[in-house]
C-alpha cells in the first residue's frame, strides 16, 4: 500500500481494512490475518498491527477469539453503518469543497451527471 507518510500509518491501514469490509473483500465473520501477517502485508511493525486490531475492536468491527485470532464482525448492521458513515464523510468533504469554490446544489448535481456520462 502506498502511504501518505505525513499522516499516521495506522489510520491509513484502518481505512483500507474498512474499505475491504465494505466491499466484501473481508466478508462478515472472516478470519483476519495474524498480527504478524498484517504487519508484513502492510509493511508496518507488529506494534502498529496490534494497535490497528485494537482500534477496529473498539469500533465493533472486529473481535478476538482467544487462541484463534481476530475475526471480522458477524453483524451486517455494523458494516452497513460503516459504509454510510464513510459515504457521508466523503460527501461532506466534496460538498464543502464545491461550495467553497462557488457551486450551488443544482450545478453540482449537473456536474456529477455530466461526469458520470463522460461529458467531463
Amino acid at each position, binding site marked *: 500500500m502506498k502511504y501518505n507518510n505525513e499522516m499516521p500509518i495506522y489510520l491509513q491501514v484502518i481505512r483500507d481494512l474498512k474499505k475491504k469490509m465494505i466491499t466484501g473483500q473481508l466478508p462478515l465473520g472472516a478470519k483476519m490475518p495474524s498480527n*504478524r501477517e498484517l504487519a508484513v502485508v502492510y509493511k508496518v511493525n507488529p506494534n502498529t498491527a496490534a494497535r490497528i486490531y485494537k482500534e477496529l475492536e473498539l469500533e465493533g468491527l472486529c473481535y478476538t477469539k482467544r487462541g484463534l485470532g481476530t475475526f471480522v464482525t458477524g453483524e451486517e448492521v455494523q458494516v452497513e453503518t460503516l459504509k454510510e458513515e464513510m459515504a457521508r464523510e466523503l460527501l461532506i468533504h466534496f460538498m464543502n469543497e464545491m461550495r467553497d469554490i462557488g457551486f450551488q446544489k443544482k450545478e453540482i448535481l449537473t456536474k456529477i451527471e455530466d461526469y458520470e456520462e463522460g461529458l467531463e
Partner: protein
Amino acid sequence: MILESIGLTKIFRMKPAVLDFNVKIEKGRIYGLLGPNGSGKTTWMKMVAGLTKPTKGMLLFEGEPWNYKNKAKIAYMSTEPFFYEFMTVKDVGEYYNDFFEDFDLVKFKKLIKENHLDEEEKAKHLSSGMNAKLKIIATLSRKAELFLLDEPLNGIDIKAREEIVNMIIESSSDENAIVISTHLLDEIESFMDEAIFVKEGKIIRQVKAEETRMEEQVSMKDIYMQIM
C-alpha cells in the same frame, strides 16, 4: 530498557566519530538510525556490539554496565561480507550454529528455502541481492535480544529489499529490539517505531514516528531533509 547509551563518544585521530550519544533502546520496538555515510552510525553500532571501545561515556545493557557476556545477546550485522568465500549457504548456517548458542538452525533453513537460496551454492557465487539476504538471514536466525543491522538495504534490487524488510518485520517481537542504520528513508518509513537522526557524529533528534506524524503532520523523511 535493553540498552542505554550515555554520553558515548569515540575519538579517532583527534576527531570525534561519535560525540555524546544519548539513546535509550527498548524491547518490542524497531529503531531507524538515520544519517548520511560517515555520520557515526557504524561506529556507534560497533561500540554497542563490543567491537571497538568507547573513548568516553557509558553503555548500560539491561540496566548494568556493558560487559563482554552481553555479546551473546547482541546480533550485529556489519556492512562488510562476513563469511568466507569458500563456504556454501549451508556451511554458513552450520558455522553460525557452532558459533552462537542462540542460533536457530531451523529458522535459518526455513528462511533459506522461502527466499530461494540454494543450500549448495557457494557464497562467492551469490548475486549481491542474494548475499545481502544470506547475511540478514544468518543474523536474524539468532534469538538475540538486540539486533543491530548496519545498512541492510544498501546496493540491492527492489525485490530483495522488500524480502529483507519482510524478514525484519517478521523477526520483530516483544523479546527483542531492532536498530536499522540507513539513509534509505522510504524503505523503512512505514515500519520504524522511532527515528534517531544522526549528523556529524551527533544525535540531532529522536522521535516516535506515529506520534510525530499525528502531532506535526510530517514524515520522517521530511525531518531528515530538514536536518541534513
